[in-house]
Each structure stands twice: as structure tokens, then as C-alpha cells.
């Protein structure tokens, strides 16, 4: 246990130092992240202002929603495919496979976290400017902000496992990016990134509740904004834990198959 902690600490230090080197790039990556939510925010605000509200959502509700979504999305997103897909395709991942620890659950995980930490640090400045520009009224409470911490941790676990499982497909095919784009595009409709799920047709909403995408985005956002009744909160935490376990099993299954596949190619 102690040894494991030391390993994680070291991986953190290495990845943090590496990220810190590229802090200027961070601003560019942020621009990517920001544009889509701001476009949707502008579109929905315009609509809400013309007709007073959209299914009960006022312009302020949209501003509060999207400006909460931005930090939550950065906190729960996973960039495993950007870190590993090329390494797998070029075979340079073998260096990491030599190490006596699971490369994705140590190095890649810490890379994700270091990237996030620095990105959030840069983002805070941008966020303050955006709050000043859109002037939303947030409905956070101390309790909702406390509960959102485990919700974000579990949300990240889920998105990390989905993204990492997709990345592993790179062991079989070079078209892994197409698969990822496809899942991301339709995931963004079902997660609440595109629009609050409450505005979706009921059929889509029920599909979204069955799938794990909303657990890493919509759930933490609504939780932070204190818009969920207690039984919904309990249910979603339960779903998060169940999905995390299920996706963990899927990930480990694909991982074992992928390793066999890889040694077969390399031999």
C-alpha cells in the first residue's frame, strides 16, 4: 500500500512537471473546450430572451447551467486517447508495458490528473471573466458543493474508463479515432453537454438515464446547482458506483485481450 502510494506520487511529480512545461499550450487547449458551450449558451440565451423562457428555463438558468458545466466538464473529462493511441499504434507503449505496474492505471491516470489540475488553474481566470460577462445567479449551497466532490470523482472514473476502453481498440485497428469521435458526438447529446437534458424529448431522456454519459456531466452539474431532490441524488450516486464497477470490469477484460493481441503482433 505504502509502495503504491510512492509510485503514484512519483508519477504525479513527473507528469505535473511535464505539464508545467507546456503551460502556454494550455490556453490554446482551453479555447477548444470553451467555444462549443459558449456558442450553445449564446443560442439558448437568445431563444429564452425572445420568448421569456424555454420549457421553464430562463436566460439566467442557461447561464448558470453552462458556466457550471465548464469546470465540471474539465474535471471529469478524460484525455487517455490523446496520450496513448499513437503510442499503441507506433509500438512505443512497450516501454511502459515493461514496468511492473499497470501503465494506464498509473502513468496515464496521473497524466490525466496533472493535465486537469493545470487546466483548472488556468481556467479559473477565464471563468471569472465569463461570470462577469454573463452575470448568472448560481444556486449553489455549501452542502451541494460538498456532495459534488465525490460526484465529480466518480464521474471522472466513469469517463476515464470509457475513454480508456475505447483507446485500447487501437491495439486492433488504426481507426480508433473515428470510433472515439462517434461516441463523443452522440455522448455529448446524451450527457447534457449540448443542452440540459430536461429540454430533450422524453424518449431521449430515458435513453440518457440508462446510459453512463450523463453521470459524468449532467448529474454533477445539477447536483452543484442544487436542482435534484434527495432520492434522485441517492439514485444517481448508486448508478455511478454501479457503472464504475461495470466499466472497470469491461476495461480490464479488454486490457487482457489487448495485451495478448499486442505480444502476438510484436513477436
Amino acid at each position, binding site marked *: 500500500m505504502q509502495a503504491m502510494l510512492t509510485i503514484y506520487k512519483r508519477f504525479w511529480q513527473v507528469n505535473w512537471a511535464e505539464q508545467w512545461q507546456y503551460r502556454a499550450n494550455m490556453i490554446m487547449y482551453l479555447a*477548444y473546450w470553451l467555444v462549443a458551450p459558449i456558442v450553445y449558451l449564446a443560442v439558448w440565451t437568445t431563444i429564452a430572451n425572445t420568448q421569456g423562457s424555454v420549457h421553464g428555463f430562463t436566460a439566467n438558468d442557461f447561464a448558470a447551467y453552462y458556466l457550471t458545466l465548464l469546470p465540471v466538464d474539465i474535471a471529469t473529462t478524460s484525455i487517455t486517447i490523446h496520450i496513448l493511441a499513437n503510442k499503441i499504434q507506433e509500438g512505443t507503449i512497450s516501454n511502459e508495458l515493461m514496468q511492473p505496474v499497470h501503465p494506464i492505471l498509473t502513468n496515464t491516470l496521473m497524466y490525466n490528473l496533472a493535465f486537469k489540475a493545470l487546466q483548472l488553474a488556468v481556467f479559473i481566470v477565464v471563468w471569472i471573466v465569463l461570470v462577469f460577462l454573463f452575470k448568472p445567479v448560481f444556486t449553489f449551497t455549501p452542502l451541494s458543493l460538498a456532495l459534488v466532490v465525490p460526484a465529480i470523482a466518480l464521474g471522472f472514473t466513469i469517463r476515464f474508463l470509457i475513454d480508456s476502453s475505447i483507446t485500447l481498440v487501437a491495439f486492433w485497428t488504426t481507426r480508433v479515432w473515428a470510433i472515439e469521435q462517434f461516441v463523443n458526438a452522440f455522448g455529448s*447529446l446524451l450527457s447534457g453537454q449540448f443542452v440540459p437534458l430536461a*429540454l430533450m424529448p422524453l424518449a431521449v431522456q430515458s435513453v440518457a438515464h440508462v446510459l453512463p454519459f450523463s453521470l459524468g456531466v449532467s448529474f454533477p452539474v445539477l447536483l452543484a446547482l442544487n436542482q435534484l431532490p434527495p432520492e434522485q441524488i441517492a439514485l444517481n450516486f448508486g448508478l455511478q458506483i454501479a457503472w464504475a464497477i461495470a466499466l472497470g470490469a469491461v476495461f480490464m477484460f479488454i486490457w487482457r485481450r489487448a495485451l495478448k493481441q499486442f505480444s502476438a503482433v510484436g513477436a
Partner: protein
Amino acid sequence: MHILKVLGALFKINVQQELAYRVDTLVNILMSMSWLAYELIGLAIIFGATNNIGGWRYGDILALLGVFRLINTFMMMIVWPNTEKFNRGIREGTLDYTFLQPVNSQFMVSFSRIVIWNAWNMLIGVVLIVIGLFFSNAAVPGIGSIASFLLLTFSGGVIVYSVWVVLISLTFWFTKFDNNVTLMQALMDTGRFPATVYPAWLRIIVTFIVPIAVATTVPLQALRGELTWWQVAVALLAGVVVFSLSRLVWVAGTRRYSGASS
């Protein structure tokens, strides 16, 4: 025409490259179809909740999406692939060979890589414009409107291209500036909706700094006959001015180029 001959040769090489990876081409076309589905689902959700966005109805937005696709395809087909090549050229010094060739260097840097399959997306763009206009019950546009639409779309493309030329030229001064176009790529998505819905600060950025709105919203306004002749003239003049300026920046930049190893 010497330059047309070169362009023809480049075109041929790129078609051959594409044919070498036929399955990839097919996958790319399937992907672009599913992006279209994604965009249409997005619009369906928005228009399930309202019948207009800042005065733009479903048909108008659909047509705008078509114009956006034309411009965005131009970027994906020519501009972004050549940026990648250019930045690698600067880093590894292979740009030397481009300058040694007896063809205009800006031309070679801009058009040596053409991702042909994207032509398919141009077609979808045109179809979206036609269907969009049909849905919006717009009067069939007159010859004047169609002509100014075509001219403005072209000049919009030229303006976006010129901004790109300035951005990559900056690499001659700041060698480590290899995420030169990231901000531009990120802002492209704003072209999916009329610039008039954005808050003033964003509208200023997408009109004057990274002029995507000039290439998408403005041509469509012309097609719908909303622009006076002098507004069209100013927009066209802006294209000529911006292009000339970008040309000056490129020439000044190339004078500073000294190769990667020296």
C-alpha cells in the same frame, strides 16, 4: 498558365494518395454523414423548443449550416492539412525544398496537400443551402442575389485564408509558435449559427479578428437579399485589402526564414 499546370499536378498526386487508402476514404465519408446526422439532431432539439433563433428560422439556419460547411470544408480540405505540413517543415527544415522550387512559395505552402474526399462535403453544403432556402419559403433568389452570394462566399473564403496566412507567417518570427492556428480552429464552430446571436464581445472577435462570420453569415444575408449594394461592395473590398495585407506579411516573413539548422 504555369500555375494551373502545377495545381493540376498536385491534384493528381493527391487523388492517387487518396486511392491508396480506399477504405479510409469510405470511413471518412461515413463519419461525415454521421456528423451531418448529429448536426440535424441538434437543430431538431433547438427547434423543438422554439421557432426562431434571433429571427432566424429553421430553413435559414439550415442554409447557414450549408454555407458553414462550404467554408469549413475548404479549411479541412486544404488549409488545416497544409498547416500541419508547414509546421513540420519549419521544425524539421524541409521547408527549404519548398523555397527552392521555381513556383510561388505561398502557393506551394497553401495547396500542396489537398484532402480530396472532402469534395463530398461541398456537395452536402450546397444541398443544405437549397433545402434550407426551400424550407424558409424564401422567394427564389434573383440573379443579383445569387451573384453576390457566390462572390461573398468566395471573398469570405479568401479573408479566412488570408488570416491563416498571417498566422502561419508569424512562425517566421516566433519559431515555437506551432499552435498558431489552434485558436482559429477552435473558433470555426461559431460559424454554425448567425453571428447576431452572440454577445457583443464574441461578435467582434468572429467578425474582425477571426472573421468567420464574414464568410458564413454575410453571404447568406446577401442570398436572402438583405444587403444593400454598398454593403456587398464594402465586404468585397475588405477581401481584396485583407488578401493584399496578408501577402505583404508572407513576403516579409519569408525574408526572415533561414532554415532549421542554420
